[in-house]
């Protein structure tokens, strides 16, 4: 096999494995969420299909598959049909750059446990999640239903507002690691759980937790789907598989946010004590990663069982007047500390402006210098 084919084969295998793991995790999440919520509310939850009701997601899948697909009268057909696809594609794109473990050696080749590893990994997730709004806006608008429209608008406004603090909360972590690459950020936290970012960057960690919950529209920030006011928000008019796709996009987004939080703040695949990293020569990184990510997912469900919903104006006030300033303050402090600890000048690379950039910097710098 040529090296190119090998690369392609590895990539395809990775995509297939991660895709199927995500699908399984999605269906298990729907079951776990219903069961756990039920226990928190002194109910039993779905327990009829299979042992402990574990086959409930399968039954749900079959049901949704065979339901009639309805496109409401007066809806914009094209956009209505495209919206679930857009939502799902952006959800899966974001998780493509999230690493699940350190590099492993398979058949004498080093393979990194993530689909793609661009050196701007964190920024890529930010970019793709800003595209995620389209799916929801399209779904809400195309249905030609006022509840769906209001739900879609609320969702979009909320995602804008909290995306800002979400992105700002990453900056402190990026400053500490000195890299946008997610594996670098994880490796920078090596050496036991007290070196993980959630202690050094406790403010950013709290901001991330709040903003991430809002970004994936979970309680207490689930105003876009507030059933007492808006029926079901932007997916009111969706039925059958299209509804299932929208639902899947939401859960995949939730998994992305949990996996990203694990990598940024909880040390990714690193063990809490370095001695626990491997057992009998076998690296336990994947297990640690899974344990941390599942705990974060459980935390989301726990939140839903515990907290009441915000009011819309409270949500906006909190996002803009508390979270954003706190996140900016955190960046200022972190940057100052990083510079003070580094002491001397950061390594200066020679700058050759003729290679890249504007043709005549002097022309532009003149007026600007006068302004300054």
């Amino acid at each position, binding site marked *: 096999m040529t090296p*190119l084919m090998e690369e*392609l084969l590895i990539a395809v295998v990775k995509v297939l494995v991660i895709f199927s793991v995500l699908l399984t995790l999605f269906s298990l999440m729907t079951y776990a969420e219903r069961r756990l919520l039920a226990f928190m509310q002194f109910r039993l939850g779905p327990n009829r299909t299979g042992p402990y009701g574990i086959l409930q997601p399968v039954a749900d899948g079959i049901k949704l598959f065979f339901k009639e697909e309805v496109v409401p009268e007066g809806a914009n057909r*094209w*956009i209505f049909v495209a919206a679930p696809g857009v939502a799902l594609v952006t959800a899966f794109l974001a998780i493509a750059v999230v690493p699940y473990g350190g590099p492993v050696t398979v058949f004498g080749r080093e393979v990194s446990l993530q689909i793609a590893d*661009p*050196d*701007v990994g964190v*920024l*890529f997730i*930010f*970019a*793709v999640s*800003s*595209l995620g*709004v*389209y799916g929801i*806006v399209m779904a809400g*608008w195309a249905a030609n239903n006022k509840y769906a429209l209001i739900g879609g*608008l609320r969702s*979009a406004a909320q995602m*804008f507002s909290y995306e800002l603090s979400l992105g700002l909360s990453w900056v402190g972590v990026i400053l500490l690691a000195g890299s*946008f690459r997610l594996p670098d950020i994880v490796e920078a936290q090596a050496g036991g759980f007290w070196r993980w970012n959630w202690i050094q960057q406790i403010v950013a960690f709290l901001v991330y937790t709040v903003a991430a919950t809002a970004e994936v529209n979970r309680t207490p920030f689930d105003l876009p789907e507030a059933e007492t006011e808006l029926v079901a928000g932007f997916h009111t008019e969706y039925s059958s598989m299209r509804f299932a796709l929208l639902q899947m996009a939401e859960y995949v987004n939730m998994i992305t946010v949990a996996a990203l939080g694990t990598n940024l703040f909880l040390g990714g695949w690193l063990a809490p004590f370095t001695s626990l990293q491997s057992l009998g020569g076998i690296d336990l990184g994947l297990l640690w990663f899974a344990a941390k990510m599942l705990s974060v997912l459980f935390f989301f469900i726990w939140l839903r069982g515990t907290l009441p919903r915000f009011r819309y104006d409270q949500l906006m006030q909190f996002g803009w007047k508390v979270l954003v300033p706190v996140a900016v303050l955190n960046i200022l402090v972190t940057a100052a500390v990083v510079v003070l600890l580094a002491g001397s000048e950061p390594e*200066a*690379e020679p*700058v050759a*402006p003729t*290679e*890249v*950039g504007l043709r005549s*910097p002097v022309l*532009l*710098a003149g007026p*600007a*210098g006068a*302004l*300054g």
Partner: protein
Amino acid sequence: MIDAVLFYAFAALALGSALVVVGQRNPLYSAFALIVTLVSLSAIFALLGSPFIAVLQLVVYAGAIMVLFLFVLMLLNVKPEGDPPAGKGVLRTAAFLLVAVLVAEVGTVLWRATARVPPVFDASPRRVAHLLFSPQYVYVFEATSILILAALVGAVALARKET
């Protein structure tokens, strides 16, 4: 090889959707097509070895700016354009002339251009930051940020007047 295939695929997508932007009567579809164009351009940047520029293209244009376009179009419920008014012979002739000039220009550029692989350039975040904060650009950069801040304050002031 695979780069070339991907490049042509995204180039075709960018061109096709750009044509839809211009040709479509429904402004909403135009906006969606423009998003597709911008995303394809971003993919081409990534293929050229500048993932940073690609990501910026997504964040700024495809993400932030186009969402505003879409919001306005959806909330104001802009109707599709009707047929152009008849009997504007002068306008039509002028349009044809201008298009002819444009086609001639593009034709000459393409005729003179020689096919070559673009030079490899380093547009990594580190490199861009070093350039931006080098003495040559740092004043422009900071001046721009002051300008944006002023625009921000102005927007808030304008919005408050309404209530």
